[in-house]
C-alpha cells in the first residue's frame, strides 16, 4: 500500500537534533530529533502540555533551546542575531492557535499588514494580493469584517491568509483544528493540504486531533514526556507503532498513559479528614 518514502537528496528544511529545553524546572524536551523535508506536511502530535506550542516557538526563534540545534532553512535559529532572525521569519508563516488577528483592523487590513510592513508595493497591487489570499481561504467576501465578527473557523482562515501573504516557504500551524465544528474542520484540513501542494509549501501541523491530522500528514511525530515516542507515516504508526503510540492514536483511556495526573491517594483526599 504505502510506497516507501523516497529519500530526498536535499537537506531537510527544518532539522532539529538532540533538542533539550527546560521549562519551570522540568525538561520539556529531553533530546528530540525531528526533520522536515521540503514539500512535506509533517504532523507533531502529543497530549496537551507536552510542549507542541513550545516546539513551534523554538522553530520560530521566539524561544532558544538550552542545548541541541534547531536548523530552519539552513540557518541555526538559536544563534541568529535580530536582523537575520527577522529575515528568516519573513520566509515562514505561523498560524497561531488563537489566530492572533489584530482586533482593531478588519480582515483586509489584517492580511495587508505584512505586505505593508515589508514591501513598498502600491496600494492597488496590495489590494490584488490581499483579495487573492482571502479568495484562497474562501473569505474574499469577508474582507470588511472585524475579527470580533468572525466565527472561530473563519478567524483561523483569515489568519491563514495573513500567514500566506508574503508567500512563505514554511508554514507552522498550531492546533488548527482545536475547537472547530466539523464543517470548518473539513475545510481547514483540505486547505492545509491543498495549499501545501499547490503553492509548494512545507507545513508543520501541531495538533492533538488524531483523526484529522493523520489524514493530511505525510509523516507524523508523536511526542510525549520530552521524547519522540514514534515517527513514521500515519499507516506505519497505526500498524506498527509502540503500545504507547497505539493508545494515543486510538484514544484509549487505558494503557501506558495514565488517565490520572499523579495525586495523593483517594482515601487521603476524601476519607477520614485530617489525621
Amino acid at each position, binding site marked *: 500500500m504505502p510506497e516507501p518514502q523516497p529519500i530526498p537528496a536535499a537537506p531537510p528544511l527544518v532539522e532539529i537534533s538532540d533538542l533539550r529545553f527546560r521549562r519551570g524546572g522540568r525538561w520539556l524536551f529531553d533530546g528530540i530529533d525531528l526533520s522536515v523535508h521540503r514539500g512535506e506536511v509533517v504532523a507533531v502530535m502529543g497530549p496537551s502540555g507536552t510542549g507542541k506550542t513550545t516546539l513551534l516557538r523554538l522553530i520560530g526563534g521566539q524561544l532558544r533551546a538550552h542545548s541541541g540545534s534547531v536548523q530552519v532553512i539552513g540557518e541555526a535559529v538559536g544563534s541568529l542575531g535580530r536582523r537575520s532572525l*527577522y529575515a528568516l521569519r519573513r520566509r515562514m508563516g505561523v498560524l497561531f492557535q488563537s489566530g492572533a488577528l489584530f*482586533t482593531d483592523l478588519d480582515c483586509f487590513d489584517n492580511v495587508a499588514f*505584512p505586505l505593508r510592513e515589508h514591501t513598498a508595493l502600491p496600494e492597488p497591487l496590495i489590494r490584488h494580493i490581499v483579495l487573492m489570499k482571502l479568495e484562497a481561504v474562501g473569505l474574499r467576501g469577508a474582507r470588511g469584517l472585524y475579527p470580533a465578527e468572525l466565527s472561530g473557523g473563519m478567524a483561523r482562515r483569515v489568519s491563514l491568509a*495573513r500567514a500566506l501573504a508574503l508567500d512563505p516557504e514554511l508554514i507552522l500551524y498550531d492546533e488548527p483544528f482545536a475547537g472547530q465544528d466539523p464543517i470548518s474542520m473539513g475545510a481547514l484540513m483540505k486547505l492545509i493540504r491543498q495549499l501545501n501542494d499547490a503553492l509548494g509549501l512545507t507545513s508543520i501541523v501541531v495538533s492533538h486531533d488524531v483523526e484529522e491530522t493523520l489524514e493530511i500528514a505525510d509523516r507524523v511525530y508523536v511526542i510525549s514526556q520530552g521524547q519522540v515516542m514514534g515517527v513514521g507515516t500515519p499507516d506505519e504508526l497505526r500498524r506498527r507503532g509502540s503500545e504507547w503510540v497505539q493508545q494515543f492514536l486510538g484514544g484509549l483511556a487505558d494503557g501506558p498513559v495514565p488517565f490520572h495526573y499523579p495525586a495523593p491517594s483517594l482515601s487521603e483526599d476524601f476519607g477520614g479528614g485530617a489525621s
Partner: protein
Amino acid sequence: MIVRLRQLGAGTLSATTTLGRAVLFLLRVVRGSGELIHRPGLLLRELYSVGVLTLVIIIVSGLFVGMVLGLQGYYTLVDFGAEQSLGVLVALSLTRELGPVVTALLFAGRAGSALTAEIGLMKATEQLAGMEMMAVDPERRVVAPRLVAALLALPLLAMIFTLLGIVGAYLVGTSLLGVDGGAFWSQMQAQVSFEDDVLNGLIKSMLFGVAAGWIAVFNGYDCQPTSRGVSRATTRTVVVTSLVVLGLDFVLTALMFD
C-alpha cells in the same frame, strides 16, 4: 524572622530585575524609534490618541485649577494688600509646579492607563507574538510610536494646561474679585522669567513625559498575559507614574529653584 528577611530579599531582587528589564527595554525601544522618521503616519496616529484625546480633560482641569488658584490666591494676597500680584502668583505656581505635575497625573490616568491596557491586551491575545512571527518587531512598530508620542504630548499638554489656568485665574480675578486686568498681566510679565520659570517648567514636563510614557508602555509590554495581569498592569501604571512624578518633582524643584 528568617522568612521575613527572605521575603524582603526576594522582593528586592524581583524589583531590581524588573527595573533592569525596564531599562533594557527602554534602550531597545529608543534605538528602534529612529525608524519613525520614515513613517510619520504611525507617530501621528498615536499623537492623536495620546495627545488630542487627552485635550478635553486637560482644558477643563486647567481652567478650574486656575480659577480656584485665583480665588485662593486673592484671599491670601488681599490681606497684605497685594492682590495686584495675583497674576504673578498664579503664573509662577502653574508654570513651575501645577502645570507639569497635574498634567502628568491626569495624563497617567487618561493616556498612560490606556497605553498599558492596549499593549497588554495585544500581548494577552498573542497579537504581539504574531507580529514578531511576521518579522515585524513590536517594540518598533507598537511601542516606539506610543512612547515618542507620550514624550511629545506631555510638554504640549502641560503648556496648554498652564495657559488655560492663567486664563481661568484672570477671569475669576477680574470679573469676580475686581483685580485690575492691566496689573494682572504687567506684574506677571515683569516677575516671571523665561529661563528660570518657563524653561524649567518645560524641562520638568519633558522628564515627566519620559517617565509617564516609559512606565505605561513597559507595564503593558511586561504584563502577565491574562485579564487580571492586564488590569493589574493598568493600575500599576497609574500608581507608579503618580508616585514617580511626585517624587521626581520634589527632586527637580530642589535642584532648579533656589
